């Protein structure tokens, strides 16, 4: 079973919730899909690590065969090819569709490969760690996310916690589409609420079962995210209050459930509620 942890807004505590859920899960996999800014590794501290490069295709031109017809330049929907005496590729804009190779009447184009990032694989105790990392300057982490989902398939007997990227764009959809359950993490601010509304809409469009965990709640004042959940009958399966000790341990890369039994209990509750909802 794949459980993804989401929030529209960054910094609501996706990684905090993810690493702690994975810590109370037996024989699980933790997957860091926030490939632009991956941080799960700082907490999981995986051992026996190795890296697998993720490659995409880009075109390579044999200029001795090119007759300058410019069909490839005209075809490219992303303007990644320009014609300056011959077709020139802007690598960082290329989406790797392979179209230019198909349209070339001279067979002057072949595919070559470019590394856009890598997947780190390791383990800590009974837990497997998969973490994607996009190279600086690259635009899209989708190929890395796809690669990790393939790798999760290598462990059919294990459940996985998936730390999703922030936002509601294509990397998030890629992650949610493959998940069995979505945990939405929400903060007690209007910023948090606006972004909760967006991921809520997303999980509904993709027809995924979901529930909310309120994070960094304060003991005083109103929580706009809680009010929204109650008004819309969105299940709340846990609430973590803002706490200086938790905040400090977390800021130092500690998994708080490992030495705070009451927090561990809270996360065990959240996980068992997820299982209950999936098995309903």
């Amino acid at each position: 079973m794949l459980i993804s942890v989401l929030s529209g807004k960054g910094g609501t505590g996706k990684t905090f919730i993810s690493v702690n859920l994975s810590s109370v899960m037996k024989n699980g996999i933790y997957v860091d899909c926030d490939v632009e800014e991956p941080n799960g590794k700082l907490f999981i501290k995986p051992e026996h690590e190795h890296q697998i490069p993720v490659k995409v295709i880009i075109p390579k031109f044999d200029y001795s065969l090119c007759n300058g017809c410019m069909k490839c330049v005209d075809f490219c929907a992303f303007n990644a090819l320009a014609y300056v005496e011959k077709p020139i590729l802007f690598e960082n804009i290329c989406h790797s569709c392979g179209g230019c190779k198909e349209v070339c009447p001279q067979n002057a184009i072949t595919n070559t490969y470019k590394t856009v990032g890598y997947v780190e694989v390791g383990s800590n105790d009974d837990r497997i760690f998969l973490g994607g990392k996009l190279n600086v300057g690259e635009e899209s982490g989708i190929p890395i996310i796809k690669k990790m989902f393939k790798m999760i398939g290598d462990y059919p007997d294990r459940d996985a916690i998936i730390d999703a990227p922030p936002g509601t764009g294509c990397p998030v959809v890629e992650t949610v589409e493959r998940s069995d359950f979505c945990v939405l993490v929400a903060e007690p601010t209007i910023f948090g609420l606006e972004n909760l509304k967006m991921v809520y809409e997303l999980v509904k469009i993709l027809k995924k079962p979901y529930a909310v965990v309120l994070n960094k709640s304060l003991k005083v004042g109103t929580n706009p995210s809680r009010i929204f959940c109650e008004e819309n009958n969105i299940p709340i399966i846990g609430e973590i209050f803002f706490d200086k000790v938790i905040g400090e341990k977390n800021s130092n890369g500690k998994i708080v459930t490992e030495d705070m039994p009451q927090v561990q209990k809270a996360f065990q509750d959240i996980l068992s509620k997820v299982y209950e909802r999936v098995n309903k």
Partner: protein
Amino acid sequence: MRQLLILSGKGGTGKTTVASAFIKLLNAKYYADCDVEAPNLDITSTPNTKPKSEDYYGLKIAHINYDNCVGCMKCFEKCNFDAIKNVNGKPVINEFSCEGCGLCAYICPANAIHMEECVNGETLTYDANPRFATAKLRMGSGASGKLVSKVKENLRSGIITDDIAIIDGAPGLGCPVIASMSGVDMSLIVTEPTLSGISDLERIIAAAAFFEVKCAVCINKYDINLENTKKIKKYCDSLGIKVIGTIPFDEKVNSAINNRMSVVDIDCKAGEAIKSIFKDTIKIFNEKEK
């Protein structure tokens, strides 16, 4: 127009909190929200004027005419984005995965596929004084970078003065961030003293260097971990990047935002710290222009 971009790498460090305070302190005539996947600047900084809203068409999507489709599945075989599924011998497009390259339409021997314009989001521009450009990406669209470029175009269009514009950036370091960096004069990176914050800071500084964007740093919630704050200062020193100031953790920030105000609208210690960071940032910004 000169552009000051507020960035962070990691989400939730306080980009919008800082940007909304800067807009207020500068009495900015021009500002934009480039976090098109989760825009929030409108919550604190919507002008009292009527906005112009426009649908944004960035990418095309493949459509199949099943009257013509012969089920050869060539499109399914050639699609590099796994955007075509084989459902009982017929191809079905997944519109979230389709990137609009047009390869399937090109190779289809039955002429059953064509590319159709689709709405990838909505831009919203308040065109009086102040001018505020923002946008909202359509759920799951792959056009976020292009939409950011459109927001910046809406912000700049027709402006020839050298006023400073404040731009609230996107989190991460992929296409929307790269698009938001284009043409900026300086970027202020808001970070926080957590190991995650530090790791993301290192990556966003590398990205800024890659695209030759000058930057300075401020540390939000610096007092939640003084050791890590020290580490950040040392790291920035070693790269010759200026740490302009630090902002204390302050519960009043939440209550300001929940009342749709910027932190400098209320009396609080975080607001005081941001005022001083603002002064120094503008000083450095102007120096860099010389």
